[in-house]
Each structure stands twice: as structure tokens, then as C-alpha cells.
């Protein structure tokens, strides 16, 4: 068994031990007795003898002051050697610190520090307290996990690495961090995991406010876990979504729609200001926003987890800035008045391109209905190509700036792999992508379920749509099903990737042989409405789902101007990064950890700015979750002052002060007798 107290600086004892003889010497030098005449020493001699006889320690007691000073010195020396009490040294030899650096950790607490700063401080305390044989690893995580320091017992290194962890505005995802922790703490080799050589499971210490979106989906497979709760603040008002679009019929005007929600426990008054190209355009008084959360109860068990999606009545408003004249491309910003704990969601950014007439491309073997509907939409008449022409067309004919020069391409009854960056609406066909397949067909049917809140299905009566045959689509995971057919099969789905947006309709206008109509939809009033919505949705400038409005942590693919080899990205903080352009004329930039507007020099028009917005109800709900669970297991919370290894020097100094006090009393008693 190892001695539970270890000295971190034993050399200090040697250095300071030289003081002991010096003190003794000083004490004897100091002991110059005062000469006092008395009438007779008879009784004094007797008293001294009596005391010496009566008490074996009298000689020591005479030197009580010396003893006290020696004790004081010893305590000071001991304190200098920095002893620690290793309470759990044998138990947790591998400790992994999981440091949450998601957006909510940027909340500013009552002491004017961010939660991340507090978490770092706690982490450094844990490092200070760690035992001699303990190894520690630090993982910083937000939407992704980042290994800040791998297992080491170098405290200085650990502290340096903890200090170097930078805040992000990303969402909290613990899965990556858990996986990383697990993989690092699992030794590799033969015979490991046998009873003779058990796996030394690591102890996880989570430093977080407990707002972790995927915590419920995780399980702790090995080792133990504790959480150190950081933060108390809960007052936050945030812009949780923003949508910028050009007016469809009057392209010189833009409409900005923002959703503002109060997440705090008290009602607040806020204004929302609209800036275009940093110029104040309009201010809306939002009035009083009701509390978004019930006041925190004392009993932790009754605190509702911050997962409720439905905002309480009156805590959320949708602000529409409509008919804002702005004919050029621009950078849009909405900004909330007032201060709250989390600053990142007090503003939202967007970009918008200059107006141009909507251009549509219809690739078809001939479709009277679609061509008529497209021609009826505002903007230029559609360009109609046959599939053969489409496949054969040169890039110059189809592309401009590396992008499809049409705003929307409608592909009718045809699968194609020619998918330059752009927006596509497929009828009865699919984009030839690895994860998009037709796995079969179905017979006469009706739509079963649909999302009528989606902009594409606005004013569209889906319940009356019938179709003779339909494709069973297998779509990417991120695809959003807008209309659901029999057996949950998607009939209309939307997904976006790599600067391309796809709307895929699972049935064609005509049947496979293009002899009969396949659906009654074209005869319904809803069909032109759907086409209008779809074109507007796909071509509409900036939405939350627009590729140019990104979430923190996303990567942006940037099309470089021809001939450019280096792109310069200016971050919201003012720092610049350079991105080298690849052979295909694209640059990829992934360092968008903070919300704000990233501007790019050397990119084609339309790629010169990226808006990165928090837009995360979960992160904006900053009230710490004190009832943190991994899966169904509640994680033990530890007070911030938790110590695995107790530093003993403060106690020694306290004891030394106590001795000093006793010495003072003894000295005074001797003087005052």
C-alpha cells in the first residue's frame, strides 16, 4: 500500500531544514536574561526545583516558545514541500476531462466570466489535485470532439492545454467525445480484458452546464462518470431563426423574417434592429416577451429538462421586416437590444444576392403541363431541353461561375448524374447519387401524411392527390420527407448537400411509358401553387437551410474566382485565415467555430460571405441542466470544490497560523502574569 501523502516538492524541505538550527541558535542568542535583584532567591530556587521535579517536561515547557517556533517552522517547511493527500489515487488512475465548449458555455455568469472559463478553472483544479500515479486526458467538445491533451501526468502541459481550449458556438454533442475517450482509454494487446489483466477503466469527468443534446442517446459502457456542473445563469433572449428572401414579384425588395424567443425566467422587453451592409434600416419593438422557462425550483427533481421544444405562450415572436428596398447584394444582420448571458444568439446574419430574373430549366421529353406552369410563373420563360440535349450540352452552356446558371432545373421522368451545383426538382426521376435509389414501385395510392407547415406545401391540398404508380425511394439520412406515402415511403422529399438542393417527387406526371397521366395533381389548383412554392423555395435567396447560412462547426465549400489559388477568409473576430484552392476551383474552409459573418476574398460573387448562426434552441436554452443523464442513468454531480487529491499546504499554513497564535498567547501570558 502506498503512503497516502506524497510530497510534490521534497527538495524544499532540505533547503528549508537549514533554518531549524538557525532558529535554535537564534533562540539561544535571544535568551539574554534580565538581571533582577530580589530579597531572597530561597523560594524561587525551591519553586523552580519543584516544577522541575513535578513535571518531567518542565525543561521543555521552559522552552515552550522555542518549541512553538520550531513547530511553526516545521509546518512552514512541510507546506513548502507541497504535500497532497491522495484520497483516490488507487482508484482512478486514468481520468478523462470532458470539457464542454459548446455555445451555451459562452454564457456569462454573475462573476463576469464565461462558463467555459469557470470550467477551465475547475479543470485546472482537478489537474492540481491529481495524484502522482494518475494520468489525465483532456477532450474539448462541442459539435465535434477535440483531443486537447492525451494521457499525461505533466500538470503544466495539461494546464497549458486546458488554457488553450478555445470557445466555439457549436452545439453540444457528447457522442464523439465519449467515443474518443473510450478508444483512448482502451488498451490494445493480447490478454487484455481477462481477469488477470483487467481493463483499467477510465474515470470521466464532465465539465458542462449539462445542456447536451445527444446525452439521452448515449450509454456509459465502461468506467465511471461524474459531472461538475458549471453555470447558473438562465436569462437569455435569442434569435432562433432568420430567413432572408427577395420578394418574388418585386425583386428589388427583400423580406427578413426572424424568430425571437425568450429563454429566461423573467419577462423582458426587447427591440430587434435590422442592418443591411452594417447600416441600420429598421427597428421593431418586440414588446414584452413572457418568461420562456419556469423559475428554477429548489428541488432538482422537479426541474423540467431543457428539452421541451414548445415555447411557452408569449415567449416567442416572429418578426417580419417586409418590403425593405434593397436592390443589390448585401449582408443582412438582425440584432437584439439589451444584454443577456449568451451573446452569440443576440444577432443573426444572412447574405442575399442581387436580384435577377428567375431562370428555370425544364429537362423533359415533352411535358405540356410543366412547361405551361413554369411559363406562368414570374420571371423568364423556361428553357426546355430534352434529356439528350441536357447531357450533351457543354459546361459553357449550362454553367456560370461553376454553378448551374438556371435557378431551378426541373427534371421530368428522368434520372441524371449530371448535377452541377444548383437546385433540382425531380418528377418521377432521381438524381444519380450513391445514397439515392429506387427500390421498387407501388400501385395506385394516396398520400398518407404530409408536412403542411413546410413552405413548399403552402396552399397545397395534398389529401386529394392520387397517383397510379410511385417509386419507393431510398434517400439520404438528412432528407426531409414532406409527403409520406403508403408504408412510410417518401413521396416528396427535400435534401441539400454540396451547394445543391434537391426536391424529389416520388411519382411522375406521366406513367413510365409516357402514354397516360400518372396523377390527378396537375388538374388541381394546388399544383401551380406547389410549383410556385418549389421554385421560390429552391431559388429563394437565403434561408436557414440555405448553404450560405451555416451552423457553427460546419464546413463551407467556396468557389474561387478563376485564376485564384489562395482564398482569404476574414473571421468575425477580425482574424484572417487562408485557404488554398484545389484543382477543381473549390476551397474548403472548416474553421467556422464562432457565429458571425465570414467574408472571403477571391471567391465568386455569391460565395463572398457566409453567415454562421447559432440557430439552436437547445443551446440558447442556457439554464443549466442539473439533472444530467446519460441515457437513463443520472450522472453523479460533484461540487465544484471536489478534490481527488487534497492539497495540504493551505491546512499546514492554517495550522502554522494557529501555532503562531498560540505562541503569541503564551508570550503574552508570560509577559502579563
Amino acid at each position, binding site marked *: 500500500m502506498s503512503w497516502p501523502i506524497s510530497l510534490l516538492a521534497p527538495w524544499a524541505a532540505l533547503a528549508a531544514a537549514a533554518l531549524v538550527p538557525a532558529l535554535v541558535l537564534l533562540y539561544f542568542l535571544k535568551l539574554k*536574561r534580565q*538581571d533582577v535583584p*530580589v530579597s531572597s532567591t530561597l*523560594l524561587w530556587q525551591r519553586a523552580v526545583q519543584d516544577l522541575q521535579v513535578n513535571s518531567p517536561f518542565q525543561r521543555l515547557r*521552559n522552552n515552550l516558545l522555542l518549541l512553538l517556533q520550531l513547530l511553526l517552522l516545521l509546518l512552514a517547511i512541510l507546506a513548502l514541500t507541497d504535500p497532497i493527500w491522495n484520497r483516490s489515487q488507487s482508484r482512478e488512475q486514468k481520468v478523462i476531462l470532458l470539457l464542454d465548449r459548446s455555445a451555451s458555455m459562452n454564457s456569462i455568469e454573475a462573476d463576469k466570466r464565461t462558463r467555459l472559463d469557470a470550467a477551465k478553472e475547475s479543470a485546472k483544479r482537478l489537474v492540481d489535485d491529481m495524484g502522482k500515479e494518475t494520468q489525465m486526458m483532456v477532450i474539448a467538445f462541442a459539435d465535434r470532439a477535440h483531443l486537447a491533451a492525451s494521457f499525461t501526468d505533466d500538470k503544466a502541459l495539461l494546464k497549458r492545454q486546458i488554457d488553450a481550449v478555445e470557445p466555439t458556438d457549436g452545439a453540444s454533442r457528447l457522442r464523439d467525445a465519449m467515443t474518443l475517450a473510450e478508444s483512448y482509454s482502451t488498451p490494445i494487446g493480447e490478454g487484455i480484458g481477462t481477469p488477470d489483466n483487467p481493463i483499467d477503466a477510465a474515470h470521466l469527468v464532465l465539465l458542462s452546464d449539462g445542456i447536451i443534446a445527444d446525452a439521452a442517446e448515449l450509454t456509459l459502457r465502461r468506467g465511471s462518470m461524474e459531472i461538475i456542473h458549471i453555470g447558473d445563469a438562465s436569462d437569455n433572449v435569442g434569435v432562433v431563426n432568420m430567413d432572408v428572401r427577395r420578394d418574388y414579384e418585386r425583386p428589388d425588395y427583400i423580406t427578413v423574417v426572424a424568430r425571437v424567443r425568450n429563454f429566461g425566467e423573467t419577462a423582458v422587453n426587447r427591440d430587434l434592429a435590422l442592418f443591411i451592409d452594417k447600416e441600420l434600416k429598421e427597428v421593431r419593438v418586440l414588446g414584452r416577451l413572457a418568461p420562456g422557462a419556469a423559475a428554477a425550483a429548489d428541488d432538482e427533481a422537479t426541474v423540467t429538462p431543457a428539452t421541451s421544444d414548445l415555447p411557452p405562450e408569449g415567449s416567442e415572436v416572429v418578426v417580419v421586416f417586409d418590403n425593405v428596398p434593397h436592390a443589390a447584394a448585401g449582408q443582412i444582420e438582425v440584432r437584439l437590444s439589451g444584454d443577456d448571458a449568451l451573446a452569440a444568439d443576440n444577432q443573426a446574419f444572412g447574405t442575399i444576392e442581387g436580384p435577377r430574373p428567375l431562370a428555370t430549366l425544364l429537362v423533359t421529353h415533352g411535358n405540356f403541363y410543366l412547361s405551361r406552369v413554369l411559363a406562368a410563373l414570374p420571371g423568364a420563360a423556361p428553357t426546355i431541353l430534352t434529356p439528350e440535349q441536357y447531357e450533351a450540352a457543354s459546361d459553357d452552356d449550362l454553367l456560370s461561375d461553376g454553378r448551374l446558371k438556371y435557378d431551378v432545373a426541373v427534371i421530368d421522368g428522368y434520372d441524371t448524374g449530371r448535377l452541377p451545383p444548383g437546385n433540382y426538382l425531380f418528377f418521377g426521376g432521381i438524381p444519380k447519387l450513391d445514397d439515392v435509389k429506387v427500390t421498387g414501385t407501388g400501385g395506385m395510392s394516396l398520400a398518407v401524411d404530409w408536412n403542411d407547415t413546410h413552405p413548399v406545401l403552402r396552399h397545397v391540398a395534398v389529401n386529394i392527390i392520387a397517383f397510379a404508380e410511385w417509386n419507393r425511394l431510398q434517400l439520404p439520412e438528412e432528407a426531409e420527407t414532406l409527403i409520406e406515402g403508403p408504408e412510410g415511403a417518401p413521396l416528396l422529399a427535400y435534401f441539400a448537400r454540396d451547394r445543391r438542393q434537391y426536391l424529389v417527387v416520388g411519382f411522375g406526371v406521366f406513367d413510365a411509358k409516357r402514354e397516360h397521366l400518372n396523377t390527378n395533381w396537375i388538374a388541381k389548383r394546388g399544383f401551380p401553387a406547389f410549383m410556385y412554392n418549389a421554385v421560390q423555395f429552391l431559388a429563394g435567396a437565403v434561408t436557414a437551410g440555405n448553404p450560405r447560412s451555416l451552423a457553427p462547426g460546419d464546413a463551407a465549400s467556396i468557389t474561387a474566382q478563376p485564376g485564384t489559388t489562395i482564398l482569404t477568409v476574414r473571421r468575425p473576430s477580425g482574424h484572417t485565415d487562408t485557404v488554398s484552392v484545389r484543382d477543381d476551383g473549390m476551397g474548403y474552409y472548416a474553421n467556422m467555430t464562432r457565429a458571425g459573418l465570414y467574408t472571403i476574398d477571391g471567391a465568386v460573387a455569391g460565395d463572398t460571405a457566409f453567415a454562421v448562426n447559432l440557430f439552436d434552441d437547445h443551446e440558447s436554452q442556457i439554464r443549466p441542466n442539473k439533472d444530467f443523464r446519460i441515457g437513463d442513468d443520472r450522472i453523479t454531480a460533484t461540487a465544484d470544490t471536489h478534490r481527488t487529491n487534497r492539497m495540504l499546504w493551505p491546512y499546514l499554513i492554517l495550522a502554522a497560523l494557529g501555532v503562531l497564535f498560540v505562541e503569541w498567547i503564551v508570550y503574552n501570558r*508570560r509577559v502579563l502574569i
Partner: protein
Amino acid sequence: MSASTIHRSAELLDPEFMARLDQLDIVSRKIFAGKMKGERRSKRKGQSVEFADYRNYVVGDDLRFLDWNIYGRLERLFLKLFLEEEDLHVSILLDTSRSMDWGEPHKGLYARRVAAALAYIGLCNYDRVSLYAYADTLRHELPGVRGRRLMHRIISFLQETPYEGSNHLAAAARTFAVRHPQRGVLIIVSDFFDKGGFETGLRYLLGRNLDVYAVQVLAPGEIDPTFAGDLRLRDVEDADVAEVTISRALVNRYKQNLQAYCQSLREFCTRRGICYLFTSTEVPFDQLVLNYLRRRGLLR
């Protein structure tokens, strides 16, 4: 105060002191005239008139003292015995060792005032008063003063006797006992801090059949020391040194020892018929003489 301190006459004989002595005189005369009448053998009442006892006649006895009346009745010879009349010899043995030259209020001065007062009272009563100053032996003496008018001799003796030597009662008492076989009252005024022990000296005095009074005078600084710190206590008599670190325990122990020392002195005296008196120099002098000494039986 140096070892050869000579008390100025003003210190012993300041007007206040003299006034008090006069008071004492009155008081003492009241005492002698009232309470003590008929109990004290007095020279002024004539010679040998007080009958004491009879005893059988033996050859050689003075025939004048035969009681012929008894012979007439019983036809046996009895001798009448009368109390012998003689002077009351008051001896005051004053400690003038250097240890008395200490304390605040000063022990030596206090002791001399006590001696002066007692001597004055003795003179007022026509007793034969002898003063002896002793330290390691009998150093100075003023024998056989009688009459109030000679008070100035007493005062000048007390003023001029220096503090010298160390307290050695045994030697002084032996010398005193050899030189003074008379019976009488002996008053010792001392601090009794005698490293040789007080017992031997007192035994010598007892052997002379004296009526002994022991007055122990201590200064407040001896009764309740106010020292502090690490000290080298130097004995003013023999330069003996005690290195002490004053602590509460030590002071308590000192006080216990002092009490035990005084108690042993008291017991020694009480067992042998010596009247023991203890006083601190803090006790006002007149209070000591008027109340305390009377209560203790020194003044009758």
C-alpha cells in the same frame, strides 16, 4: 536602595509618624490603665506584696518569710512565697540584613517603624527597652533604654543602623541568648528569609525562657511577584542567582512555597508558644499596631 541605606530622620520621624506615635501613646496608656490593671506587675505599686504560694521550710531559708500563723495552727514550718517584682525587659531584635533593604513599600523602613512604635510603647510604660540589629550575627545594640525622654536614642539608632550582611538568625540568636540571660519580652522583626533555617535560631531564644514574638514583614513584591519574562534573579544578600522563566505555573508554585514557608514558621512558633505575626508592608502601619498587634496579643 543601597546596602548601606541610612534612613533619614524624616522618614522615621516625619510629623505624621510622630502624630501616630502620640496616638499610639494614648491608646497604649488607655490599654494599660483600663484592661490591664491588676494583672501586671508594676514597679510603682511597691515591692513584693503579691502572694504566690507556700512551700515546706528547708534549712537555710530566710526566716523572715516563714508564715507564723500557719505554724501557730499546724505547728509546721511553711515558707511564704511572693512573686518577684522586676522590670519588664523588652528586647527588639531587628533584622537589618540586606534582604530587608528591598520592596515597595520598603521592608526595612516598615520593620524599623514597627520597632520604633513598639519601643515607644515600651518606653511609655517604663519598660527597659533594648534594641538589637542583627544580620549574620548581632551587629549593633542599644541596651537598656528606659523612659520616654530617651526616645531620641531609639530613633537615632534605628536611623543609623545600616543594612549589611545576610540573614543568619541562628548565629545572632545564640549571641543574644548568651549575652542576655534576663527574662522578658523579645520581639523579632524580620522577613525570616534565612537560608540556614529559622528553627535553630528560635530554639536558642526559647531556651532563655523569653516571651518571644515573631513579626514577619514581607513586601507585596514577595507575596505576589510581578516579574515577567526570562530573568536572572539575583539574591541581594549572597549574590546567589536563580535563572527563571516566569510562567503562571512558576508563579503559582512560588506562591504555594511562600505560603508553605510561612505556614511552617507559624506552626513552629505556635507549638513552642511563640506568638507569630505576619504582615505585608502594604498594611498601613498604624493599622498594624492599633488593631493587628492588639488582636494578636502583642499589646496587652
